[in-house]
């Protein structure tokens, strides 16, 4: 444990920070209707700028933030230097094929993984079944992984 971790209550203190950030993320996504099946349909039909505005602003904000963190060599509160590992391209098959499979599911359920969990919280209880199915999907991927092209 680093000095700062001890100061703010160790691991548990950090977990409280992650919990709080998760709450903010789930709250904002739900209030912005990013979790709405209707909004996802509107997006895939290109009938509103809204979802593109939200995702676009999120990317721009994150990009500027990352650039600033790198530029000033900011360290994390936990005492590590901030570094984001590059994603390995490889043959790229996993990104296009996996991405397309994910997209099919995104339009069918009208929800990405974060949205599934926020919807469960917001009272759409049947999304528990979608979450269970998503975990099953991840499991089958793990099982088939050695045989899939990446």
């Amino acid at each position: 444990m680093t000095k700062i971790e001890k100061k703010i209550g160790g691991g548990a203190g950090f977990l409280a920070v992650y919990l709080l950030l998760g709450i903010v993320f789930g709250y904002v996504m739900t209030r912005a209707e990013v979790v709405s099946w209707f909004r996802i349909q509107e997006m895939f039909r290109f009938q509103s700028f809204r979802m593109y505005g939200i995702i676009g602003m999120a990317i721009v904000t994150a990009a500027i933030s990352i650039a600033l963190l790198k530029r000033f060599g900011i360290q994390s509160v936990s005492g590590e230097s901030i570094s984001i590992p590059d994603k390995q391209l490889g043959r790229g098959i996993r990104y296009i094929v996996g991405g397309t499979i994910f997209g099919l599911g995104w339009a069918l359920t009208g929800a990405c993984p974060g949205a599934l969990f926020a919807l469960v919280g917001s009272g759409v209880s049947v999304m528990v079944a979608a979450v269970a199915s998503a975990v099953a999907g991840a499991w089958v991927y793990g099982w088939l992984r050695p045989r899939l092209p990446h």
Partner: protein
Amino acid sequence: MTGWLGGEWPWYVAGPLIGLIVPALLIAGNKQFGISSNLRHLCSIIAPGKVEFFHYDWKRVGLWNLVFLGGVVIGGFLAFHGGTGHTVAISAETRAALVKLGIHDFTGLVPHEIFNWSALLTLRGFVSIVVGGFLVGFGASYAGGCTSGHAISGLANFQLPSLIAVVGFFAGGLAATYFILPWLL
């Protein structure tokens, strides 16, 4: 609630707030924003079996993210009680297209006629919820990330693999919207 806190939040408020989750996690503990890794962690906890991919120290690697995910559920709960029972104000064109496909109930965040427990026994309910959920989990794991990990974290860090994944997200989403949903709904 009334005023700007009532109804849906505008895109120029929600977008930057979601984007700020990326630096917040980096600053807190050099953590990368990405929801779908949690699906792998959950497999590792529930049923690692003999699958090598699920044998790792999930507490060390993923506990923080699972806690974050728990927060997402709580956030959804709080937002609901902040007033998300209203009809989502989608564009008139979208509404007309969906009516044509057979959607009648436009109240709430999702069409309740498809997303309820008894609908699980119908073809469209089963495909929308169970098959859709499976493809989300399988696809995100195969692609190594979902909307948060690739579209937001990845693109913000100018990662080519993420751009390819996002192209895939839209290819699949458009295919489902124009070829599967008209038949399914």
